[in-house]
């Protein structure tokens, strides 16, 4: 292109000075003093050669070689331009020139003549037309220059706008349109003609807020003539384009941008549909000067992307993949080039930032951008709402996932809704640019459907280890991608679909395809620590994401056989194929140095995740964690290095401990040569010692878990049984290693023989006669400590150690009491400990502090007076079995409570089946199902099952029925014993039924068998056989009273807890019994048996109240007393009434009966 030779310096801001820069000889101008003079200067003369002004003649000289015909026109235009320039530049002559201009405009305003279209500035237009006809390029250039300047001034002056609109309308007249078109389509090199014309059009479009923008656009055949070509006419000179001497492209672009800014919606749509123009605008955007790029990006953002009225389809016409790629090419746009901007341009963001902002808005905002709604992990076109198995195969076979035709289709190609974005993101280089990476991730977040497709298409993206900036960039991108959350409902809008997303797509989101198994294995064995570390971190994220995906599959599956479950299994199976084996991770972990804190932490975290998320694969590795755990324990114990390093090692230790929790081979209580105590005790010490106060809750959770598993303690859902020990250890000032060894020894013993200590606890509780407490909580470890203490003391340890031990034990007891361990049990243990210490003074230290908040009023338990402590009335009143009002009554009516024999849990195993049933071993074991201790109950249940099997397999005559009975008991008990003892009614029934089954001649033999075959599970709120005996009549003639007698005995034994009373209440047992006695044929023995049931009821908390208020027991007794003639029987009823009164809530009953009951007794 030729160097520009435009008239008047071309610039809108150019002043007179630039005249000297002109390539042509500088034209002379005339100083203007009046509007009239100006008008005269611009007058159109047909004969252009005619001199109009004497002065001019004097100075005239040819300015275009070979043609001076337009010289005078040119002088006039130049003089006008000088006037306009001075106004635009706001120079000293502005005040003089402005009135001249106004005068000129007013005087040249066309008069309103009917049927005549007004033509503004007719002389100038005529001159332009003539020059155009004669191809006088100087005038063709000069006219638009002057008009553009004039419109610019008018735009800034409201009073003149009407003139401006008139001029613009004149320009829109056919003749002027053609002049414009001719100018615009001038040869490529004639930018001095094209540029001013483009400026003129832009000024016309911008005038009065775009009042005439639409008509100008409508005349686009002329006004936009050659626009696409002109958009390509860049500045090609040396150096940078000067904003003041803008190139044709710059002017054309500004014209186009003004249109985008000012055109109304439909016109804008039409404009954007001009493919050649849009393409020309975006082509080689990166080569444009920064000020122009900023203007383009600014208008695209404000007038296209953020224009909510503009349809997405139209936006895509300009923001297509090509344009986006062009805009993305601005990443890394040289920053220096933006710094030379003048102050007017500096309001723009740096090019790179502006491009980034525009792309973010365009690609991620579904409301205004071009991003379309999509369905996440479900490929485009897939309809997952109905699951219809293949109708032909459905009759016989369910192929599950395989019956969905599209399920396995998407491993090589994934159709997406946002195809445009999909193509665009492939052009990005996110590994080498922070901003591009940010953009890509934002696009992935907005349209997760693109993630898997991106990596499938991006074949060149390889994760093979190479210590380079690009590899680091890859790894960083992969980390961010794996870290992206899974879209809710896998991309569905409100709920899970009927069919899960394709497994391959889910997996590609968890382990992106570049992370091949081969590449990861190579990374793990790479010499570079950094590469291995990054790989480990990626795997950590992948496992966490898999965990979440599986959880979502569980949420979505409505039934165990649901297709979602199958998809989850397949996902895990496929995941196995994509990740390294645990043994590779472990070998990597073993290579790490002691100082590699971050690496050790990450690797141990990963190992733990293998166990937690994909345990099947982890357990296959048969990895023994103990040596590593021990090494880490020793490292933490040594506590060398800075605080943060120790904290980091502790995290590693916690991960390993959690791994150990999952490892079946972990030996928690076994001491190894280099450690003074077992891992359990060592961890306990680490956790409780002040030096490692930094540890979190994880350690204590693991310790509690282990203690629970090995039955060292009894826990409740809300409180761990190990807490008292931990708190006691923390609160004891110093603990000698001998004491730690002792605790270790006890923990080891207790873990080895938990049943022994559980039974010891049973015995102690029985001795203390507190069998009727509801929620008795004990602690086997304490029991073991009490048992082992004498052996420790006999060694004998140093006095100081004993002192420490005493204060630790005291703290332990106190904390146990606070934690809700049974007071009676603790008191009993306290006695043992005091006795074990054998030192009265030290013993006195083991004192349970007085607790003011307790309901039952504790007394201090001090050495030397255990008896008095035991006898203190700290039991609730209703439970006091020992308090008797009438000895005789007790002798006649009290029935001993059935209890289990000693060592029932183990003894039975050595006995033959006949003895089990006949000698009561079976019954004794069954009774343990109602033990207070969950662990005993569980153990008992297991043993009942074993026993049932043993009996069934034996030659014992009644083996089938006994087996059936036991198994029905097991089935009934299985769910019930988890959180409370099995209801007495079931336990006692099982024991009593055993007696019947072993004797086929028993009168109830048939009824019991009928009962057993009627259903596999016994209802806990039903009283077996009661209806069959009381209502159905006897099976054998004459055995009615025998059956009644059996029932009464059964009922007495079944009454042991308030829950039993409640059951009797619900099933109206008392009502039935009281009416039973009305039978005159019933003997004294049976009547006494009924009284035994009542007597047992009075022994249970709230029992007396229930029978008095709900069943009228008092009046029934009074009636019985009155109806009998026998004095001794009368006394019996009277004593019974007295007993009821003594054991009830007298205040409440007195109020309830208005003092009536008291009178009766």
């Amino acid at each position: 292109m030729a160097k520009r030779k435009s008239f008047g310096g071309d610039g809108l801001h150019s002043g007179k000075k630039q005249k000297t820069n002109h390539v042509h000889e500088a034209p002379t101008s005339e100083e203007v003093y009046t509007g009239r003079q100006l008008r005269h200067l611009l007058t159109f003369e047909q004969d252009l050669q005619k001199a109009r002004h004497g002065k001019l003649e004097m100075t005239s000289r040819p300015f275009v070689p070979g043609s001076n015909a337009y010289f005078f026109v040119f002088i006039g235009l130049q003089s006008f331009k000088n006037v306009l320039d001075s106004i635009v530049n706001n120079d000293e002559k502005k005040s003089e020139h402005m009135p001249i201009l106004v005068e000129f405009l007013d005087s040249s305003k066309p008069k309103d003549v009917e049927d005549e279209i007004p033509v503004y500035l007719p002389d100038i237009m005529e001159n332009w037309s003539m020059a155009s006809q004669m191809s006088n390029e100087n005038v063709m250039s000069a006219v638009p220059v002057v008009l553009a300047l004039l419109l610019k001034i008018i735009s800034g002056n409201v009073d003149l706008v009407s003139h401006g609109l008139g001029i613009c309308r004149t320009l829109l007249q056919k003749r002027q349109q053609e002049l414009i078109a001719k100018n615009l389509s001038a040869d490529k090199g004639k930018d001095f003609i094209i540029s001013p014309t483009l400026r003129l059009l832009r000024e016309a479009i911008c005038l009065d807020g775009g009042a005439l923008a639409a008509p100008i656009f409508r005349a686009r055949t002329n006004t936009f003539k050659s626009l696409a070509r002109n958009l390509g006419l860049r500045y090609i000179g040396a150096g940078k384009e000067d904003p003041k001497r803008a190139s044709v492209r710059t002017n054309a672009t500004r014209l186009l941008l003004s249109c985008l800014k000012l055109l109304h919606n439909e016109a804008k749509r039409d404009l954007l549909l001009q493919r050649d123009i849009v393409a020309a605008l975006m082509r080689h955007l990166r080569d444009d000067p920064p000020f122009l790029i900023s203007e383009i990006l600014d208008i695209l953002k404000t007038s296209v992307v953020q224009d909510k009225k503009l349809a997405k389809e139209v936006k895509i016409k300009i923001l297509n993949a090509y344009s986006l790629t062009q805009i993305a090419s601005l990443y890394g746009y040289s920053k220096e080039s933006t710094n030379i901007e003048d102050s007017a341009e500096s309001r723009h963001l740096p090019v790179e930032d502006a491009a980034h902002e525009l792309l973010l808005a365009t690609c991620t905002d579904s409301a205004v951008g071009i991003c379309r709604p999509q369905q996440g992990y479900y490929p485009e076109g897939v309809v997952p709402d109905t699951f219809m198995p293949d109708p032909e195969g459905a009759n016989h076979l369910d192929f599950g996932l395989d019956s969905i035709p599209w399920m396995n289709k998407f491993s090589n190609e994934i159709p997406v809704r946002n195809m445009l974005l999909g193509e665009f993101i492939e052009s990005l280089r996110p590994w080498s640019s922070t901003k591009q990476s940010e953009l890509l991730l934002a696009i992935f977040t907005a349209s997760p459907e693109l993630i898997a497709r991106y990596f499938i298409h991006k074949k060149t993206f390889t994760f093979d280890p190479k210590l380079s900036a690009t590899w680091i960039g890859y790894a960083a991108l992969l980390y961010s991608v794996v870290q992206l959350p899974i879209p809710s409902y896998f991309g569905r809008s409100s709920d899970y679909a009927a069919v899960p997303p394709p497994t391959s797509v889910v997996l590609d989101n968890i382990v992106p395809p570049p992370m091949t198994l081969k590449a990861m294995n190579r990374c793990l064995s790479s010499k570079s620590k950094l590469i291995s570390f990054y790989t480990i971190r990626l795997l950590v994220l992948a496992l966490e994401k898999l965990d979440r995906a599986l959880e979502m599959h569980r949420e979505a599956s409505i039934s165990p056989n649901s297709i979602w479950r199958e998809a989850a299994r397949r996902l895990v199976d496929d995941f196995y194929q994509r990740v390294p084996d645990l043994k590779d991770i472990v070998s990597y972990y073993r290579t790490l140095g002691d100082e590699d804190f971050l690496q050790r932490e990450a690797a141990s975290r990963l190992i733990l995740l293998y166990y937690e998320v994909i345990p099947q694969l982890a357990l296959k590795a048969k990895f023994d964690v103990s040596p590593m755990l021990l090494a880490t324990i020793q490292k933490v114990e040594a506590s060398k290095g800075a605080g943060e390093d120790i904290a980091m090692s502790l995290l590693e230790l916690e991960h390993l401990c959690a791994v150990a929790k999952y490892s079946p081979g972990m030996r928690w209580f076994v001491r190894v040569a280099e450690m003074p105590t077992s891992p359990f005790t060592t961890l306990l010490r680490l956790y409780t010692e002040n030096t490692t106060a930094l540890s979190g809750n994880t350690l204590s959770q693991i310790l509690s878990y282990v203690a629970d598993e090995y039955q060292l303690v009894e826990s409740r859902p809300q409180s761990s049984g190990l807490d008292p020990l931990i708190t006691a250890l923390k609160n004891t000032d110093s603990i000698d290693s001998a004491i730690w060894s002792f605790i270790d020894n006890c923990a080891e013993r207790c873990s080895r023989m938990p049943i022994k200590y559980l039974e010891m606890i049973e015995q102690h509780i029985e001795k203390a006669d507190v069998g009727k407490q509801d929620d008795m909580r004990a602690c086997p470890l304490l029991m073991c400590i009490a048992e082992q203490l004498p052996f420790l003391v006999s060694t004998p340890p140093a006095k100081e150690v004993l002192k420490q031990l005493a204060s630790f034990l005291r703290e332990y007891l106190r904390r146990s009491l606070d934690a809700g361990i049974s007071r009676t049990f603790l008191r009993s243990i306290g006695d043992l400990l005091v006795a074990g210490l054998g030192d009265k003074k030290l013993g006195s230290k083991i004192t349970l502090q007085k607790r003011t908040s307790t309901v039952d009023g504790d007394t201090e338990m001090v050495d030397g007076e255990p008896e008095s402590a035991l006898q203190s009335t700290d039991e609730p009143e209703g439970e006091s079995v020992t308090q008797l009002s009438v000895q005789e009554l007790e002798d006649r009516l009290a029935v001993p409570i059935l209890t289990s024999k000693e060592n029932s849990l183990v003894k039975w195993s050595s006995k033959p089946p006949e003895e089990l049933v006949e000698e009561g071993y079976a019954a004794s074991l069954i009774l343990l199902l109602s033990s207070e201790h969950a662990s005993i109950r569980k153990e008992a249940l297991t043993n009942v099952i074993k026993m049932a099997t043993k009996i069934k397999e034996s030659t014992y005559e009644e083996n089938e029925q006994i087996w059936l009975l036991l198994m029905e008991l097991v089935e009934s008990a299985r769910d019930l014993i988890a959180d409370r003892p099995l209801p007495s009614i079931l336990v006692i029934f099982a024991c009593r039924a055993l007696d019947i089954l072993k004797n086929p001649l028993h009168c109830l033999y048939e009824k019991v068998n009928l009962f057993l075959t009627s259903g596999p599970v016994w209802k806990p709120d039903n009283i077996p056989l009661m209806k069959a005996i009381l209502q159905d009549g006897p099976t054998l003639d004459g055995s009615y009273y025998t059956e009644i007698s059996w029932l009464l005995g059964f009922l007495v034994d079944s009454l042991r807890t308030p829950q039993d009373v409640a059951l009797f209440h619900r099933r109206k047992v008392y009502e039935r019994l009281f009416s039973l006695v009305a039978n005159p044929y019933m003997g004294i023995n049976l009547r006494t048996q009924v009284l035994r049931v009542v007597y047992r009821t009075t022994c249970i908390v709230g029992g007396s109240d229930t029978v008095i208020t709900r069943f009228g027991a008092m009046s029934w007794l009074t009636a019985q007393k009155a109806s009998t003639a026998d004095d001794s029987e009368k006394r019996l009823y009277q004593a019974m009434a007295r007993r009821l009164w003594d054991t009830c809530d007298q205040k409440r009953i007195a109020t309830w009966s208005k003092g009536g009951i008291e009178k009766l007794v």
Partner: protein
Amino acid sequence: MTGKDQKTAADFTAYYLQQSTKEFGEDLDKVRGADDFKGDALPVLIRSLQQGTSMFCAADQKRIVDAQQADGKAGSDGEGEGSA
């Protein structure tokens, strides 16, 4: 996130970067010497290193920062990118 949490997170990131430079000093030097280490490579490298902090929950970050401060080392080691 409160100001205190942000401070903890920032302190932890500083520690993490510092520890990274200790553990991977040699590798980081190699990366910096690689042919393709230009343009945005340094910020990308730093970002990639500190990505790992997201594996630590807020409580664990606090434990480590607290331990560091208890050790009296905090403060002077502010910006972790020592040799990078």
